[in-house]
């Protein structure tokens, strides 16, 4: 600092470069950002990604369609059913097969449970980043129940791989349905509890309101999606706009807020937890009877009992297990709404049992430039709040 002729302190124009990450706890994974600081304020930010690159897209080009599904779990590891669904819907579009209603409803329930789980994990860690410790413990307590439900239906707590091409892996058992029913009865009080801790809390409001603002036009131009886009005032949700997997049969609202700051992104996600619960309640009530996977034996395995009596079923079983199913030549893309926004796989098929090219449209990856835009002009302490509010998952950023 230098003293000017008027005797005022003149700010030095020099900036400071500050490295954040890749092992910073608030970046939720291995994300590095190089901040150019003017005192306490962020001038520009240069993100650095790729630390978690595992080459899943390249590996997919050497695996059969059914073998790609477990890898999609590992992309956005907080939303495995949503990724499975996006991959399966695209493959099913290429195959042009119909999925039974019961399977569609089970898929919807799995995806909405995952959405609640993902938002709960986000809420806990985001609040922890800003300094509210208790919410973290409460939110993870409820998320644990969702993981238990996952274990009950699929045997796995996180990477369920439960949604398969043609339907789901198994029928929904009565115990699981009872568990889901208990969970949706239990949840609303708990969401109120989080809101009592945060929504009107003056510290929370100070830390989040007016921080990391992005306008509707900019949010669209930066290709933000999901809660970030809806917090800026754009009513854009694929569950309503392009209903897939029977979403048109459910009544639910899309929460939209206008300010586009960290607080509104929090409100959108809290409201989405409530709406997802509504969808699960309706799915439980109207769950149709019938098969849980397509009866097309060229794609899904024939029922176990028929193997002992039907020669044809045995042949199909052998062919499917040993060879896989052939997908007609062509390319397709089906977007679905994940907890972080538009997820979709662009699949190019050359007519064989292995996809020729698989490309994930990852909402977190596309959100990073927008996130850096939000950081500009923020205080250094708010950078953590902005990164948390966008909810990036490095698994799908680096793929």
């Amino acid at each position: 600092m230098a003293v000017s002729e008027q005797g005022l302190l003149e700010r030095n124009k020099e900036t400071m470069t500050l490295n954040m990450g890749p092992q910073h706890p608030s970046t939720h994974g291995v994300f590095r950002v190089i901040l150019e600081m003017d005192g306490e304020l962020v001038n520009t930010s240069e993100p650095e990604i790729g630390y978690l690159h595992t080459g899943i897209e390249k590996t997919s080009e050497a695996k059969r369609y059914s073998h790609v599904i477990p890898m999609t779990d590992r992309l956005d590891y907080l939303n495995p059913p949503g990724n499975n669904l996006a991959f399966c819907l695209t493959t099913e579009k290429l195959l042009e097969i119909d999925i039974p209603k019961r399977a569609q409803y089970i898929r919807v329930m799995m995806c909405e449970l995952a959405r609640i789980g993902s938002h709960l994990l986000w809420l806990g860690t985001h609040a922890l980043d800003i300094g509210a410790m208790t919410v973290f413990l409460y939110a993870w307590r409820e998320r644990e129940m969702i993981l238990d439900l996952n274990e009950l239906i699929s045997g796995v707590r996180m990477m369920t791989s439960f949604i398969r091409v043609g339907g789901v892996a198994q029928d929904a058992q009565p115990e699981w349905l009872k568990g889901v029913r208990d969970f949706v009865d239990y949840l609303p009080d708990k969401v109120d509890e989080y809101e009592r801790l945060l929504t009107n809390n003056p510290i929370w409001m100070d830390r989040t309101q007016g921080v990391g603002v992005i306008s509707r036009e900019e949010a669209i131009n930066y290709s933000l999606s999901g809660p970030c886009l809806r917090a800026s005032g754009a009513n854009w949700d694929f569950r309503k706009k392009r209903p897939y997997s029977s979403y048109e049969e459910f009544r639910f609202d899309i929460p939209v807020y206008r300010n586009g700051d960290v607080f509104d992104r929090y409100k959108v996600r809290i409201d989405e937890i409530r709406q997802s619960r509504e969808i699960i309640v309706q799915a439980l009530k109207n769950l149709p009877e019938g098969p849980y996977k397509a009866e097309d034996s060229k794609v899904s395995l024939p029922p176990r009992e028929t193997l002992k009596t039907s020669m044809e079923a045995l042949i199909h079983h052998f062919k499917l297990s040993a060879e896989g199913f052939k997908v007609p030549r062509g390319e397709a893309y089906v977007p679905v709404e994940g907890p972080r926004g538009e997820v979709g796989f662009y699949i190019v098929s050359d007519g064989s049992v292995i996809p020729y090219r698989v490309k994930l449209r990852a909402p977190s990856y596309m959100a990073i430039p927008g996130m850096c835009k939000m950081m500009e002009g923020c205080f250094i302490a708010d950078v953590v709040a902005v990164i948390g509010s966008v909810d990036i998952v490095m698994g799908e950023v680096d793929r």
Partner: protein
Amino acid sequence: MTNQDLIEKIQSALGDQIQKTELSLGDAVVFLEPKNLPQVAQTLKEDADLAFDYLSDIRGVDYLEWDRDPRFEAVYELHSIDHNHSVRLRVGIDEDEASVPTISHLWKAAPYPERELYDMFGIHIEGLENLKRIIMPEDWDGHPLRKDYPLITEEVAFSFNRDFKKELVKDKPETRENIWL
């Protein structure tokens, strides 16, 4: 507006700048040459009836094994938030001097997927500042998602029983040819 109407509208608005249009499994698809991309994208974005204001994604595809010309393709997916329709632009790119103009002046989201296109396929992006690798390390050789880049197992590092694990590493690259189809 159905996708058929959408295609007819695009055809009438951009007739001479696009190669052909088709309805692929119900999706509107437009084929065009790289040199026309900025103009086509601008018209699609600014025309009031089309208003494709949202860039969903840019993907590269390498059609080396397909006996198809040109070898590369960059695929742009655009949505319209107001009208709720989508279009897919398929831009064929030649193998020698593989290059495509940038659309980052229209969408600020474009540089990231464009840099990925360069990183993974080695397609040069004309007019993009700061064109460098994004996912792979900067000193990496080759462009991994090209079809002539082999899929091999990485050598084991950081392991206390490295000698044992080395035996597990396959020398033979796993390609589409040696997987039993």
